[in-house]
C-alpha cells in the first residue's frame, strides 16, 4: 500500500449555513442567495483564517450540477473573486456527482503531493432550492446512468435506487430491526444537528424523532421501502478548507496546532454502467475504506470519529458495514447499542451528517473534511466530541451516485 510521500494538513475550515426546508427562515417563495454568494462566503471565511493568503498556490471548486441548478458553469473562475490572491493562479472545478466535494479535496492533495502546490483553497458548493423537487430529481438523476436507467426510473430517481437497496437489505437481514435502526440513525442525525447552528435541522423541535422516523413507507405517496425521513433534504450551502504541505502551512502563517494531518487520501471508482452485484452491500465504499485504513495503518477500532455519507439512512447502515465497524447484516445492533451516538465509542456524523446538517451535494465532501479538522483542533464548539489516544483517527466517506465515486480521508491531530 502506498503511503503519502509527504505530509498534508487541513486547516481554515468554514461552512455557510446549510439552507433549505427545515430552517425557520426558509420560505420557498422568498428570494434566496445564489450560488456565487455561497462560494464567496465560504471561501472568504476560510481565507480570513490565514495570515498570508498570498501563499495560496491553487484553488479547486467541487460542484455537481450548477450548470443546471443555477445555469452557471465555470465555477473555478469565481475563486479569484473570493480571493484576489488566486488571480492568474491555477483554479478548476471538479465533478463526481455527490462525491464532487471529496474529489476537490483529492485534487488539492494531488497538487501538493506532486509538488505543484504547497497550499490549495478547496470550496465545495451546491445550491439546489432553485427548482421544485420533481425537477431537482431530474437533475440529480444525472448521477445515475442516464441512457440505461433514467427512462424506466422513478419520479424520485435516487431515493428509489436506495429504497430498492433497503428492500434488498430487509429481505436478506430482516426488516423490523433494520427499520428501527434507520429510525435511530435519523434521530441521532437530528439530535446532533440541534447542537449545530449552521445545520438545516438546527431548528427541528420534534419531541420524538424516533417515532416520526418509524412512519411506515408508502409506495403510493413516495416509495416502497423508505419514507421521507430516511432521506437527506434539498440543501443550499458551501464549505471551504485549505490543504497545505508543512511548508505551505508555514507560508500561510497557520500554526500546526490549528491544523489536522491527513493520514490517508483514498479514491475508488465503481462502474456506472453496471448495477451492484449485491444491493445489500456497498462494494466501492468497502474498497475505498479498506484502502484508506491501510494507507493510514489503522483498523476500524482505531476510529474515534466518523463522517459517513448518509444521503439515506440505509446508506449510513451499509457504510458502517462496508467500513468494517459492523459485520454484514449487523449494523442495526451496532446502532441500537448506541455505539454511533454523540457519546458513543465512535461518534458518527457529530454535526448532523447529510440528514441533519444538510446535503448541498457538491459541498458535502469538503464539509466532512472541514468538520474533521474542527474536531481534531478542538474547535467544534457544541459539537465537539472527545477523540482520545485509544481511537485517534477521524475518517470520512463521501459517495457520488449509487456507490460509484468514492472518496475517503483519514485525519489525526497534529
Amino acid at each position, binding site marked *: 500500500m502506498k503511503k503519502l510521500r509527504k505530509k498534508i494538513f487541513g486547516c481554515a475550515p468554514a461552512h455557510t449555513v446549510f439552507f433549505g426546508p427545515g430552517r425557520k427562515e426558509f420560505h420557498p417563495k422568498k428570494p434566496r442567495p445564489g450560488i456565487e454568494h455561497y462560494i464567496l462566503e465560504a471561501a472568504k471565511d476560510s481565507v480570513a483564517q490565514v495570515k498570508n493568503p498570498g501563499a495560496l498556490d491553487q484553488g479547486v471548486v467541487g460542484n455537481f450540477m450548477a450548470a443546471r441548478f443555477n445555469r452557471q458553469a465555470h465555477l473555478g473562475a469565481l475563486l479569484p473573486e473570493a480571493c484576489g490572491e488566486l488571480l492568474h493562479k491555477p483554479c478548476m472545478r471538479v465533478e463526481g456527482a455527490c462525491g464532487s466535494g471529496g474529489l476537490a479535496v483529492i485534487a488539492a492533495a494531488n497538487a501538493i503531493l506532486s509538488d505543484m502546490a504547497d497550499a490549495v483553497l478547496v470550496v465545495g458548493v451546491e445550491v439546489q432550492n432553485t427548482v*421544485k423537487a420533481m425537477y431537482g430529481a431530474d437533475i440529480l438523476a444525472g448521477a445515475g446512468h442516464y441512457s440505461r436507467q433514467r427512462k424506466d426510473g422513478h419520479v424520485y430517481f435516487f431515493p428509489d435506487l436506495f429504497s430498492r437497496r433497503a428492500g434488498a437489505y430487509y429481505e436478506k437481514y430482516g426488516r423490523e430491526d433494520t427499520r428501527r435502526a434507520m429510525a435511530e440513525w435519523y434521530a441521532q442525525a437530528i439530535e446532533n444537528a440541534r447542537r449545530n447552528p449552521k445545520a438545516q435541522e438546527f431548528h427541528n423541535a420534534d419531541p420524538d424523532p424516533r417515532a416520526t422516523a418509524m412512519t411506515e413507507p408508502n409506495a403510493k405517496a413516495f416509495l416502497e421501502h423508505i419514507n421521507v425521513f430516511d432521506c437527506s433534504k434539498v440543501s443550499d450551502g458551501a464549505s471551504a478548507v485549505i490543504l497545505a504541505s508543512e511548508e505551505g502551512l508555514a507560508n500561510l502563517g497557520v500554526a500546526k496546532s490549528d491544523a489536522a494531518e491527513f493520514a490517508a487520501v483514498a479514491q475508488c471508482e465503481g462502474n456506472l454502467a453496471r448495477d451492484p452485484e449485491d444491493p445489500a452491500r456497498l462494494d466501492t465504499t468497502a474498497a475505498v475504506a479498506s484502502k484508506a485504513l491501510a494507507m493510514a495503518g489503522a483498523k476500524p477500532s482505531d476510529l474515534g470519529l466518523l463522517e459517513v455519507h448518509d444521503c439515506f439512512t440505509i446508506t449510513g447502515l451499509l457504510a458502517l458495514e462496508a467500513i468494517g465497524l459492523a459485520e454484514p447484516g449487523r449494523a442495526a445492533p451496532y446502532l441500537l447499542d448506541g455505539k454511533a451516538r454523540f457519546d458513543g465509542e465512535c461518534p458518527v456524523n457529530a454535526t448532523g451528517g447529510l440528514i441533519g446538517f444538510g446535503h448541498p451535494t457538491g459541498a458535502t465532501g469538503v464539509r466532512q473534511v472541514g468538520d474533521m479538522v474542527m474536531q481534531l483542533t478542538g474547535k467544534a464548539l457544541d459539537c465537539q466530541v472527545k477523540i482520545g489516544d485509544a481511537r485517534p483517527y477521524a475518517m470520512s466517506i463521501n459517495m457520488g451516485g449509487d456507490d460509484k465515486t468514492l472518496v475517503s480521508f483519514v485525519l489525526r491531530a497534529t
Partner: protein
Amino acid sequence: MNLSERLENAAVIGAAGKMGSGIALLLTKELARMKLSPEGQGKVYRLALIDVSEKALDGLLGYVRSQVHKMAENSVGELRVLFADRADLVENGEMIEEFVGQAMSVLRPSTDLNGAAGARIVFEAVFEDEDLKIDLLGRVREHVDPDAWYMTNTSSIPIGGLDRKLELNGRIVGFHFYNPPAVQKLLEMITTYTTLPELKEAGLELAKRLGKKVVPANDIAGFIGNGHFIRDGLHAIGAAERLREGGEWAGALYKMNRVSQDWLVRPMGILQLIDYVGVDVFRCILEVMNRYLPDRGLHCDFIDILAERKILGGQNPNGSQKDGILRYEKGRSVAVYDPERGDYVAFDPNGWTGEADRQLGALPDGFRPWKALVRDRKKDEALAAHFSALRVSESEGAKLAMEYLKTSKAIGEALVKDGVANSAGDVNAVLTNGFFHLYGPINEYTG
C-alpha cells in the same frame, strides 16, 4: 353518441368567469387525459372557451396553463406511466411540459359564439340571471350540434323552465359546481322528469371523471345548497334586525356574524359568506327563489338596500375579498356596513365590538374553532360537548346560537319534506361538502 364522443367537441359559455374558469380547467384536464389515452390517438379534441372579453379570455388561458402545470407536477408518477412508450420523453420536466402542451392544444378561446360551432356538449356558467341564460343559450343553440347536451351551472333556476323555454326536450341538466369548481368536491346535479336518461347517466359519469361527489337535487328553485344557504342568511339578518330593536345595526350584525362562526363552529361567519358569494349573487338567487316560491318570505330589504348602493362583496381579480356587508383588510374583517348611517363602522375592541363581545358572553370551556377541529378525527365528540354546553348556557351567544341551530335544522328538514332533497343525508352532504360545515344541519345537537 356517448359521453366521450361528445367531449371531443365541448364548449364552456362564460368561460372566463369565476365558475366558468374552474369548469374550463376541469374539462381541460379531462380532455387532455382522453387525448393522451390509447383511445384518443389520432382524434382531434376541442374545448371552445367562449366569453365576451378578449382580455378575460387571455387571463383564462394563463390561469389554465398555470393550474394544469401544477397538476402535472403533482402527478409526475402517472405521467411517467402515461409516457412510458415515448422514447423522446425521459425526464420529469420533459413529461410535464409535454402534458401541458397537449392540454393547451385542445383550447379554442373565442369571443364569438361561432367558436362553439358543432359542440356536442355545452357547459353554461354565466351570471345567475334566468333571462340572460335563456337568451344566451337560445343563441348558442344556433351554433352547436342540434343534438347537443346542455349542462347549466345554475344554483337556483329551475331546470324544467329552461328546458321548456329553450325547447330542449330533456337535453339539459343542472350541473351545479361549488366555488371554486377546481377545488370543491361537491356537485349538485339537478334533473327533471323530462331529463333524458342517458344524459342523467352521463352527468354522473362525468362528475366521477372530474373527481366530484354528486348529490342529486330535485328541480325546485334554490335546490339544496342555496335552499339552505339563502334561508340561513335571511335568518341571520332577521335575527340581527330583532336584536337591534330599532337601535344600531353594527353591533347586531357583528354579533350574528360571530355567533355563526364561533358558536356554530363554522369556517366563516354568515355575513362573510354572503360577501364571499357576493351580495348581488345572493340577491339574484333570492329573487329567483321568490319568483318560483312566492309568499314564503324570500325577500330581504337589507340585501336590496346594499345591492342598490353597490355594496356587493365578491372577489377582486387577484382573489382577495371585496368589501360587502363587512369591510376587509388583508383578508380580515375590520368594519361592518350600517345601512342607516350609509357607511361602515370600524370594529373597536375597546369600544362597541368589545361591548358586543361582553354581551355575547364567553364561549364554552374547551371551545375549539372550526380550523382546529376540521382535521380532528374526534371532532364529533368535541362538537357534542360544545353544543351540550350551549344548551344549558344562559349567555346571549349561546341562546342566539341555539336559535340559529334550530332554524338551520328546520330549513334542512323542510328541504326534505318539500321534496327538494331525497333525504336528510343528502342535505347534510351538501352542507358538509359544499360549505365545509363540520356537521349537517339535520342533527341531534339541538337537544
